[in-house]
């Protein structure tokens, strides 16, 4: 034993190993290192905060451990409003500021006594939603909230039966606010999620949920009777955005669950792990996306009759229902949609769609997928190419067996005044800022 300890070969080996160990430790400890290529003093993470992004992009970890960070909005000065799903220390909105310009938040304030998902910023107002209401805050010239404890109630009494309860919001620039009211159901079965139970005929859930409702953005205390059902047949939408290029509302639907467990004779586990598609729709007033009567099969590129309504996995239907403008593999849970209008990213990203996927659970027992941010290029308000994975690695592991294991889950997107892309995560409470820094 002693003889090995002092052998020269061994000594060199150990010294090298020690150095490697120390270096690894040092890198971990100093997550922020300045990037010499960047003009600014942005603290771009040396390992891109453990994310994978395309060449030329860098990642700054703006904040972490905020709680269940859902949707986000960034002010013209780079301040970030973060909506929390559950209250943290009694508050439901966090306002982050970076006063020294390194990109990392160094000032935090909190307000709002309700949890929720939706948040949307205009020049003069901040809108935020609970799972049954929409509130409006007034902003000063720096887009800071002036009435944190006494917001106006714009919409109230929206249905909240826990399932698909989040109320995502967007505005059209013409004084209207659009809110998703998710269906409190998987497939509108008479007995929820019960094998063999048929679909309700008709599906009465659609009277008050399963669609997008439109309200006046400035009128107080509106409820169902004051708004209009803008589009129906949407099981649950969490990501939505107004496309300013063609002046249309775009939404991302979460497709139905459990084709195999509810109809084992028609769908095997592997098929059920990828079907039906998660779908992107362009909506006009009065549109119907077909839920619960049909679903979209991205492999056949067809609308298929749901098994609860007499479908066999092959029979097509929904002749009057919208076709999606883009389709993605099943169950990946698109939780945010953002049309990129900034000037920082290369030209091909301009006007394209970023989509934050929360990551699946319903693929089990197959491994989970989709803990990532995707990009779809657009031309003239229409997708001009296939989707690609833009930012990945949020889960922090190669194979995700169960969503509870994932370190981070993308949930919200926002564009900064300089064209940076912000991503929120409701598992680790992290806010990421993705910048393009190639010369």
């Amino acid at each position, binding site marked *: 034993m002693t003889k090995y*300890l002092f052998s020269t070969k061994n000594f060199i080996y150990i010294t090298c190993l020690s150095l490697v*160990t120390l270096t690894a430790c040092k890198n971990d400890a100093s997550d922020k290192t300045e990037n010499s290529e960047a003009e600014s003093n942005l603290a771009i993470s040396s390992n891109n905060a453990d994310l994978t992004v395309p060449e030329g992009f860098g990642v700054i970890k703006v904040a972490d451990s905020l709680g269940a960070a859902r949707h986000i909005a960034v002010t013209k000065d780079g301040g970030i409003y973060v909506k929390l799903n559950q209250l943290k220390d009694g508050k439901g909105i966090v306002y982050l500021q970076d006063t020294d310009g390194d990109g990392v938040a160094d000032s935090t304030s909190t307000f709002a006594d309700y949890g929720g998902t939706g948040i949307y910023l205009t020049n003069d107002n901040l809108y935020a939603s609970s799972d049954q209401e929409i509130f409006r805050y007034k902003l000063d010239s720096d887009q800071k909230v002036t009435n944190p404890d006494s917001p106006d109630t714009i919409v109230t009494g929206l249905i909240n039966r826990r399932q698909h309860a989040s109320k995502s919001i967007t505005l059209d620039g013409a004084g209207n606010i659009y809110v998703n009211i998710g269906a409190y159901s998987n497939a509108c079965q008479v007995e929820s999620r019960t094998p063999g139970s048929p679909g309700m005929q008709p599906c009465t859930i659609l009277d008050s949920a399963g669609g997008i409702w439109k309200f006046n953005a400035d009128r107080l205390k509106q409820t169902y009777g004051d708004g209009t059902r803008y589009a129906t047949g949407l099981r649950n939408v969490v990501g939505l955005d107004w496309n300013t290029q063609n002046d249309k509302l775009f939404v991302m639907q979460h497709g139905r669950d459990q084709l195999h467990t509810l109809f084992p004779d028609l769908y095997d586990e592997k098929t059920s792990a990828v079907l039906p598609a998660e779908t992107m729709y362009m909506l006009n007033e009065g549109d119907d996306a077909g839920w619960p009567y049909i679903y979209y099969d991205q492999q056949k590129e067809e609308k298929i009759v749901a098994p609860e309504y007499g479908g066999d996995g092959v029979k097509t239907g929904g002749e009057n229902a919208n076709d999606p403008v883009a389709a993605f593999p099943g169950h990946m849970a698109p939780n945010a949609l953002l049309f990129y209008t900034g000037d920082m990213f290369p030209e091909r990203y301009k006007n394209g769609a970023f989509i934050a996927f929360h990551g699946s659970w319903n693929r089990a*027992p197959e491994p989970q997928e989709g803990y990532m941010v995707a990009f779809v290029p657009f031309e003239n308000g229409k997708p001009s190419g296939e989707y690609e994975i833009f930012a990945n690695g949020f889960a922090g592991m190669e194979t995700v067996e169960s969503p509870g294991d994932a*370190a981070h889950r993308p949930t919200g997107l926002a564009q900064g005044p300089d064209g940076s892309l912000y991503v929120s995560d409701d598992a680790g409470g992290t806010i990421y800022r993705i910048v393009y820094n190639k010369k």
Partner: protein
Amino acid sequence: MKIRLLSHPLIGLMFLLLVSCNSEKKKSTETESDIKVQETSASASAKTDESQQEVPAFMEAGKTVYTQNCLVCHQSTGSGVPGLNPPLKDTKYVLGEKNQLISIVLNGSNKGLVVKGSTFANAMPPFASLSNEDIANVTSYIRNSFGNKAEPITPEEVETVRAGTK
């Protein structure tokens, strides 16, 4: 060379350094690490028990019922899905009062059960169509999987609850 290296005291020290380095990097909350400690000790003791006595029949039979009816929502790890489907591991509603657990399986649950301070969005459907034996097997299986350790449930106990809810 390999044997020499592994038995080397300095190498051991360096592994420790690496491990401590890693644990700093991993971001787990206090509760999470608590659970992990409990899991390890529970599964360790389960292993000792298993080596001393045969695995009870309900484990295999229960796993089959679990895989067909429960796994998608409650996951192969019994950890559920945050915000949607409650976990089964290390929870009072699974490990405590047997009748409550039997009743949830028979009648489903859509009341927003609070588990470890969280509520969960999805409704659980009733599984009354399963036999008393299947329900006994699957409840016994979940009470003794994922690090759980609790007394098994018998078909007679299921029948008592079933008769009471008719």
